[in-house]
């Protein structure tokens, strides 16, 4: 991927995000409604009332597995401090199901409910791992560059570029 997503994707996301989480409730609701509306429409052939972002407003809703991600593997000591007991909001299952179905070549291929939940865990782990490694890259970059000014602490595309090859190999 080119830096700053220059020539890469025609994809224009609807929302510039990533302000500190605290002040995000109202925006969260609005965007949630919008996005889920869109996806619902496109999933209409599925089970009708798909909701793309069901749990988005209460992050503590999911009670499943707490901290076992901490048991996860090797290296990178700095990763430890990053993963706490807070469950991140899960990726909506309907969305994931749709993405998977689009990926299947054979229309007849299905996926069981339990398998679906494990895929959710897999993707969630992928995302969290990407974020954790990006923080690590950023730390290293800023250590090298010294003062970063107002950009300090902002994860950059170049951080992702550095970690992506290994991340994809690891998953």
């Amino acid at each position, binding site marked *: 991927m080119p830096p700053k997503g220059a020539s890469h994707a025609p994809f224009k*996301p609807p929302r510039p995000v990533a302000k500190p989480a605290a002040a995000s409730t109202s925006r969260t609701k609005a*965007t949630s409604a919008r996005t889920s509306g869109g996806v619902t429409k496109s999933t209409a052939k599925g089970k009708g009332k798909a909701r793309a972002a069901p749990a988005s407003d209460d992050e503590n809703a999911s009670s499943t597995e707490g901290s076992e991600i901490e048991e996860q593997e090797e290296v990178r000591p700095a990763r430890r401090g990053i993963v706490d007991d807070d469950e991140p909001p899960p990726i909506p299952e309907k*969305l994931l199901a749709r993405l998977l179905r689009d990926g299947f070549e054979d229309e007849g291929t299905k996926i069981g409910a339990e*398998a679906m939940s494990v895929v959710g865990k897999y993707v969630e782990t992928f995302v969290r791992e990407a974020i954790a490694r990006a923080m690590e890259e950023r730390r290293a970059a800023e250590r090298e560059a010294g003062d970063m000014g107002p950009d300090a602490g902002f994860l950059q595309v170049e951080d992702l570029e550095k970690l992506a090859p290994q991340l994809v190999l690891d998953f």
Partner: protein
Amino acid sequence: MPPINPEDEERLKSALWFAIGQIIDSTTASTSFNATPQFIGALTELVYTQIAFAARDLEAFAKHAGRTTVNVDDVLLLARRNEGLEGLLRGFVEEGRAKRGVGKGRRK
């Protein structure tokens, strides 16, 4: 992959973008980090692609076993090269099964 309607694809990516943005928010909330919108967009692309590849793998695993329905064992195969990840997913499966009540034996 069958070609999907670009409009749908864009909607799906928007939804995924949103979900990932939330995960980033919740993950970075307790740190001094933040993410640029470009970062979130790029991560969204990466995850989108990863899911597409995972779907093809899962389908192939199920087919190889003579099934048309992907089951948990197929998903665990995804993580076969990463012990830590496999252990994590196995733990997740077992925990889920324990929660739903033991005694079902190994479900296929």
